């Protein structure tokens, strides 16, 4: 699983339910939904609800990209990685054709170049040090892991630095997004996308067999993968774009920096129309922030419904240092790499965008480096 301090909900006994935090999670979600409904934004309410569902699903399935990738790299176990591919395959069935055929819907695309590769590699290092990726940080922080609360804080800080670095990296060059549906049409693009996922799964299975690792995902991973894939489609339907996580972190950090007196409005990144609008507008007008909030409170509700919430002790200082460093690297890397496991990998591949696979291939070696660095902070390589 993603961290050692969060465990998935098991069959709850009445005495195990943490009513205080369960009520807090439900109340906070209710407040956010009420605020957007008062603004006549039902789609925003749907995004919060979708995020809430994702938080519950991730928590229930103990869905973790970070641990899955680590187990594949260290032991050759492919089950978790294949669970991630299930999510992508399910989401792609709707996202590729709808993004190509229906106006106002679009896939997750991104340019190919040094920024993407450097960002994804850096993110890979960070996710192994922090012990959680974008979605993992959200749901474990929401689920009661104080360690991942620290990761989230430094993720946010790192992503603001990333927003300041991105324009310089884009100046290094690159090519425009490569989208399967653009070359093969909506249904041909879907076929190519699903074929690429099958090919990736075949390679992963072949590597696992050669290394003597397991190739069968846990039942929870399969059910959770399908549920998360369907929720990805729901978020896509409500927001018009695939689910993304980390842009919200960047906006939160930039708004906090602005409140502290830093003027980011002249930084190149924040002069682009999208980021400029997000910085100036309500935080509840940003789609990724809405699903992020929903996911945090969904995970909190799921955790509090099954056991006393956040009762574990704080981890050792070295572990917290790894978390902080990992969070910074993930934040910076996510901005340069156009997202995390969700926005870039899941969103990109399920949109039929080549950048998703490039992100994955660049993040894996970063994970290897991160795994080798873990013992320096008192963390195991497993």
């Amino acid at each position, binding site marked *: 699983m993603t961290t050692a301090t969060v465990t998935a909900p098991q069959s709850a006994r009445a005495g195990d339910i943490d009513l205080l*935090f369960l009520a*807090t999670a439900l109340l*906070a979600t209710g*407040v*956010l939904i009420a*605020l957007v409904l008062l*603004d*006549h*934004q039902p*789609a*925003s309410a749907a*995004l919060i609800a979708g995020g809430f569902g994702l938080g519950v699903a991730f928590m229930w399935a103990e869905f973790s990209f970070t641990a899955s990738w680590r187990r594949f790299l260290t032991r050759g176990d492919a089950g978790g990685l294949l669970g991630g591919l299930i999510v992508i395959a399910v989401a792609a069935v709707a996202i590729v054709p709808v993004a190509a055929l229906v106006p106002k819907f*679009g896939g*997750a*695309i*991104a*340019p190919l170049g040094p920024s993407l590769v450097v960002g994804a590699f850096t993110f890979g290092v960070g996710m192994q040090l922090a012990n959680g990726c974008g979605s993992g940080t959200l749901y474990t922080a929401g689920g*009661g892991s*104080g360690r991942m*609360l620290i990761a989230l804080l430094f993720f946010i800080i790192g992503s603001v630095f990333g*927003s300041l670095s*991105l324009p310089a990296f*884009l100046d290094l*060059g*690159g*090519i*425009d*997004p490569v989208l399967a549906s653009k070359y093969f049409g909506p249904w041909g693009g879907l076929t190519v996308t699903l074929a690429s996922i099958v090919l990736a799964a075949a390679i992963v299975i072949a590597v696992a067999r050669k290394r003597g690792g397991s190739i069968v995902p846990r039942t929870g991973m399969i059910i959770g993968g399908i549920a998360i894939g369907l929720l990805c489609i729901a978020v896509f339907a409500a*927001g*018009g*774009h695939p689910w*993304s996580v980390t*842009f919200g972190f*960047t906006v939160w950090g930039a*708004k906090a920096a602005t409140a502290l007196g830093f003027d980011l409005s002249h930084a190149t*990144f924040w002069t*682009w*129309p*999208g*980021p400029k*609008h997000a910085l*100036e*507008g*309500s*935080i*509840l*007008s*940003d*789609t*990724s922030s*809405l699903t992020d909030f929903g996911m945090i409170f969904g995970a909190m509700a799921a955790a509090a419904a099954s056991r006393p*919430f*956040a*009762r574990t*002790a*704080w981890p050792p200082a070295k572990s917290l240092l790894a978390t902080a460093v990992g969070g910074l690297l993930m934040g910076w890397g996510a*901005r340069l790499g*156009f*997202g995390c496991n969700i926005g870039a990998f899941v*969103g990109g591949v399920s949109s039929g965008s080549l950048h998703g696979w490039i992100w994955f291939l660049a993040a894996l070696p970063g994970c290897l480096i991160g795994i080798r660095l873990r013992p320096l902070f008192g963390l195991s390589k497993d």
Partner: protein
Amino acid sequence: MRLTYMVVIVLALAAVVFDHLSSPSSGRAVSPEDFIGACAPCGAPCPSAK
């Protein structure tokens, strides 16, 4: 840790509510990709636009 959590939740929720009430609303939630010229989820421009 529970106290830390509760403080963080209350402060964060207060900040979100304050930000929402003090900022202009766009009428609907948007992503940076919704804006013309966006080439990535963060709204970065395409290399060919440079």
